[in-house]
Each structure stands twice: as C-alpha cells, then as structure tokens.
C-alpha cells in the first residue's frame, strides 16, 4: 500500500473509529515454539499419507479388475490344459470323422461296386464268389430301391467288370464292424 493511500485510510479510520485507531495493532495470540520450523515436514508426511481423491469411488472397480486379472493369470494354465486336451480330442475326432467318411465312401463305393459286381455276375459266378450266407449278408446292405424286384435282380445278366477289389476284400469288409453302426 502506498503512503498516500495509507494516510487516507488512516484518516478514515480515525474519523470512523477513534478508539480503535488509538489502539496498537498487537497480536495477543501465540503459536507454539518451533511450530513453523516443523510445519513443512508435518504437511509433507500428511500429503504422502493422504488417501488420493476418488480412491474409494474407484476402489470397487479396481478390486474387481484385479481379481479378474488374477483369474486370467491362473486360468491360462487350465485353459492351456483344456485347450491341449480339446485339441487332442479334436484331432482324434477328426481322425475318426475322416476315417468314418473314408469308410463311408468305401462302404458306398463297396456297396456300389458290390452292386455293380453283383449286377454283372452270373448266378454261377456269384455262387463261386461267396457262399449263401455271405451273399445274404451282402444283399442286406445293398440300398434296394422300393420297387426292387429281387427276382428280376437275380435274373439280370451280370456282366464281368473290372473289380476294384477282390472278393476277399469284400469278405474282409463284411466281416469287419465298420458297417454295423452305419446307417445308410
């Protein structure tokens, strides 16, 4: 405050409140000894230990996030095991499925071939190729048409064809379990 302003204000105070103006500006209050020399340290400690703003507002979310992260840290091992098991299982399943499909193709081809084979065999040739039970068994798996006429079928002239497989192979196939669970 410059001197001129101070004088003006003092004059105003003297006019307004002469008793107050006449009093000394004395501080009657006392601060404890050494208070100010330690205050900065005290405040530093307090700030260092202060709970950050919004700490409790976000605490629940942080805890949940941490738990989820902890879980994902543990789960990967399990997941890896599960993944490994699943991949092995999938591989096995794939092998079975491929095998099944190949077998199904084989069965279909076999049946088709058998069909053709039977169609093209003469009765005597058929008799030579397999015994009665075998023939009956094979016929069971032939996809007969609804209007299949067995008599006509037998009477059909069966021509010789180039076989893709031998009768033994047919026997082997028929004696196997491949076709047992297969629905045609």
């Amino acid at each position: 405050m410059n001197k001129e302003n101070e004088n003006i204000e003092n004059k105003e105070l003297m006019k307004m409140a002469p008793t107050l103006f006449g009093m000394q500006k004395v501080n009657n209050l006392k601060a404890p000894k050494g208070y100010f020399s330690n205050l900065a340290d005290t405040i530093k400690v307090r700030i260092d230990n202060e709970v950050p703003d919004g700490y409790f507002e976000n605490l629940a979310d942080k805890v949940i996030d941490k738990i989820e992260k902890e879980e994902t840290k543990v789960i990967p091992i399990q997941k890896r095991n599960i993944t490994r098991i699943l991949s092995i299982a999938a591989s096995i399943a794939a092998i079975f499925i491929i095998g099944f499909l190949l077998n199904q193709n084989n069965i279909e081809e076999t049946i088709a071939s058998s069909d053709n084979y039977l169609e093209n065999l003469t009765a005597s040739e058929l008799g030579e190729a397999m015994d009665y039970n075998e023939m009956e068994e094979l016929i069971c798996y032939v996809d007969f048409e609804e209007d299949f006429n067995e008599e006509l079928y037998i009477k059909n002239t069966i021509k010789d064809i180039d076989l893709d497989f031998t009768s033994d192979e047919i026997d082997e196939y028929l004696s196997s379990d491949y076709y047992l669970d297969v629905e045609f």
Partner: protein
Amino acid sequence: MQLSDNEIVAQIKTGQDTNKAFRALIEKYQERLYWHIRRMIINHDDTDDVLQNVFVKTWKGLVNFREDSNLYTWLYRIATNESITFINKKKKENNISIDDESYHLQAGQADYLMDCAEIQEKLEKALLTLPEKQRAVFHMKYYEDMKYNEMSEVVGTSVGALKASYHIAVKKIENYLIEN
C-alpha cells in the same frame, strides 16, 4: 534466496524439484496464513488442522492452478474458505458458536487472551461478535493491510462491497469498545 511465486508454481507444474518448490511455498506463506486462520478460529490446534488442510488442498490444486492468477490471493482464498467452513462445521457439531467465549474455554485455550491488556481483550471479544466473512475482511484490512482488489480475489466479493463490509465491521468494533 526465496523463490518467487511464479518460480514455485512453474517448478511444481513441470515436476522439476517439486518437493523443494512446495516446501518453499509452505515456508513462504505458513506464518501469514497461520495468523489469518488463527484470528478467525482462535484455537491453535484447530488452526493447525485447518492450515494443514489448506496446504494439502493447495498441493492438489496446484496442477490446475492458472498461472495468470495470483498465488498469494489464491492461498488466502483457500484459507478463508477453509476457516469459514470449519467454523460452520464446529457450530453444527457442538451446537455452540465459535464466537462464544465458552467455546474457547472448552477448547482449553490457555494461550487465548494470554498477556492481553484489558483493551486488547475487549478488541478480541469485539472481533468475535462479527460474522465470519466480515471478520475475515476486517483481519485482512486492519492487520494485514491487504489491498481491496486483492481481498476481492480472496473472498470473491466486489471492491465496493468489501469497503462497505470493512466500514460496518469497524463501526461495530468501535461501538463494542465504547460500550464495554
């Protein structure tokens, strides 16, 4: 060498010697703010709590402190608001006015009015009759010789209103001193 306000703020904001700069800020303003609060609250322990709160809030708020503002008046604003908030809280908690002399006796103020001459004691009592904001205005003007435009920044009131407030406070105190 004492750092200027701008240097203190710049160092804290840039993270350069933050602790050192903040310590410089505390040491520069601790006594002025202490007495500003103490004259409002009277009790030393309460003043200590409030003053620490003021510096903690200052620390938190410095990041967002606009450099075109005045650090000195900003600190006083925080101190004044904290003091008034504390007084109002205390009034609600104890159902006792902090202006009441019984509050200071309850608070065990051995140093309160210690070594007071009779006239000074009367002045202290007269000050306690003022509303909190008016008391703050009186302290800033009478004891600290603060300019009205600085006080305006501290209490968020126009210079005209502050002049009126100070005038009324002075009149009340004068009347109290005469009557007592």
